[in-house]
């Protein structure tokens, strides 16, 4: 069969998983994509592609894609739309934005961008912030719901990890998945976990749920929700009291150890066993692993721990174990983290944003701005606030008061369906030229297809909108290729150019250290790893990792906890990537695999309420109610239920509270994750229909 027009192109998967963004190999025939497979030349994914990545091709020709700009033709949420031209849509947006600027309320124009925009790393880091900065807008992004309190903890210790999973697979004697379930959310890490096991190493998972990763682990510890400071500090207690810690490293490279050591004395393993509801021998076994298995790598990739009232402290407590056990700056040790290659970030023009009282990217500030009406126009770029942000009923009322809501996306997301006035059609990742990196290499995301219908890439319409606002130099480049070459002018990107990248499906090496922090220099004020954080002291945060009970717990609010006796834990399965494109609903294969929200309930809790596997239940608390089907399973502990995130049934119930003060976000540029995981609910039988 002649197949002369068949070509192979390379790109990177459109999902924004961390720490691995897997390489893909695209087969194109007659201008259509006929196959998407893993890129065998990718340094970390090595040809593997998970269920989501394999289904990404279903995005391209989906009949559910938005193909033209749409304007609301009825009440908000009515589902009635009519098509408009790009010019008409942009005129309308510019008109409203200009009115706000002319009224001296520049900050009333807000832009929120998230995972759909992260796909093209350059949009995320440079071209979208550049638009918001030059236009003088409030800029919020998907970092805050995702991982911002984790980052705050890293910033406070001066240590960001930066190791990659391939290094762990090749060198670690132990890997600790602390509140991470890579088998469900980042399946490409699993071969590296198995590699550690095959070499005789151990895999540990710390998670209240029996996760998919827990099933592959040699040790699974199930601490009571939010008790991780006690668990980590008790491990430190054992290491210090037995002298089984790296004294030389702690003395030479760390700051505040004497205070930490004194602080840790109170975290007796026996007491920790009670507080964490974990057998003492498991805590001792974990300490043995930290003491004896070297190097030990911690997988703390993303934000699960940050979604607690005490998230910053929990992450700090876990980070402190890394230098204490002599694993900082060691090959195969450290902590896994995804982003290590910097672009030419000066192009984001953050120094050129006109002065105005912009609410910072912290949930408290966002909630206050929406509540007070200090924002009028919200442009959502590849994000989905109604799926991503907490306390949905409150949020709905807030969004309802905004003057203009614009959503730029591939599909009609929940925010587009229920709140938007204008919808702009987005290009898919194969319809524009872009870039992505692994921890060590830079990859081209080549343009493979013409944009569908009237879809336009973000920087193209932002350029037209900027011009309408009087900003002439938003896109000073002659072409996207020239633009990307400029974005690549950074020390880490070295001599990479688009033309060169196009010749290298295996990517081009970035200039990054072989082993992160091998020189023992940390990003803190003292240049050392800070057990006692001086920055925390300045910011009014606890100097040492301290325990605080979760919101709504029996200890912190006994009456509420009695009325709502179950913890609602948000979880992740293989089939979806939280808000991103709502792809689990719009793509047939993923939709078939997870057609609706399922609440996982322990048999004892189910029996106590007379509900059975498959029953429809009403789940409620003071913030709202949801109807879901249940699966009865011992995967969740008694006293807690779990629901996959992204379903609106979850965020109707989550609390709109972020523990990190706005002042910290103003100082550090991060922090402000809502305490999604500190949610109490009750369930009862009933509710056959989903609302």
């Amino acid at each position, binding site marked *: 069969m002649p197949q002369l027009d068949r070509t192979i192109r390379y790109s990177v998967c459109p999902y924004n998983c961390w720490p691995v963004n897997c390489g893909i190999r695209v087969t194109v025939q007659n201008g259509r994509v006929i*196959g*998407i497979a893993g890129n065998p030349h990718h340094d970390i994914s090595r040809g*593997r*592609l*998970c*269920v989501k990545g*394999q*289904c990404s*091709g279903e995005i391209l020709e989906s009949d559910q894609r938005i193909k033209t700009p749409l304007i609301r033709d009825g009440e908000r949420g009515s589902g009635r739309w009519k098509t408009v031209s790009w010019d008409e849509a942009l005129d309308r947006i510019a008109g409203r934005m200009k009115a706000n600027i002319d009224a001296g309320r520049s900050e009333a124009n807000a832009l929120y961008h998230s995972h759909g925009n992260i796909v093209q790393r350059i949009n995320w880091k440079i071209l979208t912030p550049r638009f918001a900065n030059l236009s003088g807008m409030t800029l919020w992004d998907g970092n805050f719901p995702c991982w911002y309190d984790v980052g705050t903890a890293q910033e406070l210790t001066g240590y960001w990890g930066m190791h990659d999973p391939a290094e762990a697979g090749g060198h670690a004697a132990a890997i600790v998945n602390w509140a991470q379930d890579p*088998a*469900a959310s980042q*399946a*490409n890490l*699993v*071969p590296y976990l*198995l590699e550690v096991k095959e070499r005789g190493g151990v895999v540990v*998972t710390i998670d209240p749920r*029996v*996760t*998919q*990763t*827990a*099933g*592959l*682990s040699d040790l*699974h510890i199930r601490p009571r929700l939010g008790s991780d400071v006690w668990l980590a500090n008790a491990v430190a207690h054992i290491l210090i009291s037995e002298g089984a810690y790296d004294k030389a490293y702690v003395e030479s490279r760390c700051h505040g150890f004497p205070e930490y050591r004194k602080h840790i004395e109170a975290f007796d393993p026996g007491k920790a066993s009670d507080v964490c509801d974990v057998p003492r021998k498991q805590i001792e076994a974990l300490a043995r692993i930290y003491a004896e298995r070297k190097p030990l790598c911690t997988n703390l990739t993303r934000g699960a721990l940050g979604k607690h009232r005490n998230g910053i402290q929990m992450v700090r407590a876990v980070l402190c174990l890394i230098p204490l056990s002599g694993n900082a700056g060691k090959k195969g040790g450290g902590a896994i983290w995804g982003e290590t290659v910097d672009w030419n970030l000066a192009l984001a023009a953050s120094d050129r944003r006109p002065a105005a009282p912009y609410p910072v990217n912290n949930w408290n500030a966002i909630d206050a701005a929406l509540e007070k009406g200090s924002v009028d126009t919200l442009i959502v770029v590849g994000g989905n606030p109604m799926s991503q942000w907490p306390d949905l009923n409150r949020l709905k009322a807030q969004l309802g008061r905004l003057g203009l809501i614009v959503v730029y996306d591939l599909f009609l997301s929940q925010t587009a369906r229920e709140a938007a006035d204008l919808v702009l059609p987005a290009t898919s990742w194969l319809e524009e030229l872009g870039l992505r990196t692994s921890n060590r290499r830079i990859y081209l995301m080549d343009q493979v297809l013409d944009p569908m219908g009237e879809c336009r890439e973000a920087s193209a319409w932002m350029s037209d909108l900027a011009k309408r606002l009087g900003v002439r130099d938003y896109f000073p480049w002659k072409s996207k290729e020239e633009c990307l070459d400029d974005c690549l002018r950074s020390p880490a990107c070295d001599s990479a150019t688009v033309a060169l990248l196009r010749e290298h499906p295996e990517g081009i090496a970035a200039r990054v250290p072989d082993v992160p922090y091998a020189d023992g220099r940390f990003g803190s004020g003292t240049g050392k790893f800070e057990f006692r954080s001086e920055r925390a002291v300045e910011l009014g945060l606890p100097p040492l990792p301290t325990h605080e009970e979760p919101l709504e717990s029996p200890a912190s609010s006994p009456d509420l906890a009695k009325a709502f006796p179950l913890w609602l834990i948000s979880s992740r399965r*293989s*089939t979806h990537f939280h808000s991103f494109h709502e792809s689990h609903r719009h793509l*047939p*294969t993923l*939709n*078939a*695999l997870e057609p609706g929200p399922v609440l996982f309930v322990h048999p004892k809790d189910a029996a106590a309420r007379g509900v059975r596997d498959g029953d429809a239940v009403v789940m409620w608390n003071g913030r709202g109610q949801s109807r879901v089907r249940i699966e009865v*399973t*011992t*995967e969740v502990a008694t006293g807690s239920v779990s629901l996959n995130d992204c379903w609106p049934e979850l965020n109707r119930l989550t609390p709109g509270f972020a523990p990190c003060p706005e002042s910290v976000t103003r100082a550090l540029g991060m922090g402000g994750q809502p305490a999604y995981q500190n949610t109490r609910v009750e369930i009862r039988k009933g509710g056959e229909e989903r609302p």
Partner: protein
Amino acid sequence: MMRRVFILDTSKCFGCLGCVAACVHANRTPSGVLWREVLKLPPEEGSRDTLYLSLACNHCENAPCVRACPSGALSKRSTDGVVLHDPDQCLGCRYCQMACPYGAIRYDASTKVTSKCQFCADRIDEGREPACVETCFGGALRMEIVDSEAEPAEYRKEIPGFVHHPEAGPGIRFLRK
């Protein structure tokens, strides 16, 4: 007799569902039709007894679907025992679905015919692995040709969550540490 079987090492399957998607895209099954599924058995004692079972058509030795098919759409290949389904000959009567003890046969209302895993016959005839096997991250799923008279002792025919129907003779073996 030499026959082709799936081997599933349950200690390496972590329920990632990659095999399901690989099957859909390699075989271009109709929208939302999944030939392969992953069953989950929640833990009784501890995390490590959680079982994920990646299952599709078992290409049975005495395939009940072949016997039930009135049109000859279903047939058993003599060379390696693969059970093939020919949609062009399928009447859409769904007798095969009723006969299959494993619920492995799908019916698509849009095309009005049944379909099922073909063991990626086209691929294996070219010397390649079935799509589900090729994609498996954990190396849990394999394809093997075994001599049914002399199977390795560690190949289990039964495992919790999977009902062995000896009269059908399913072509799947399990490994469990």
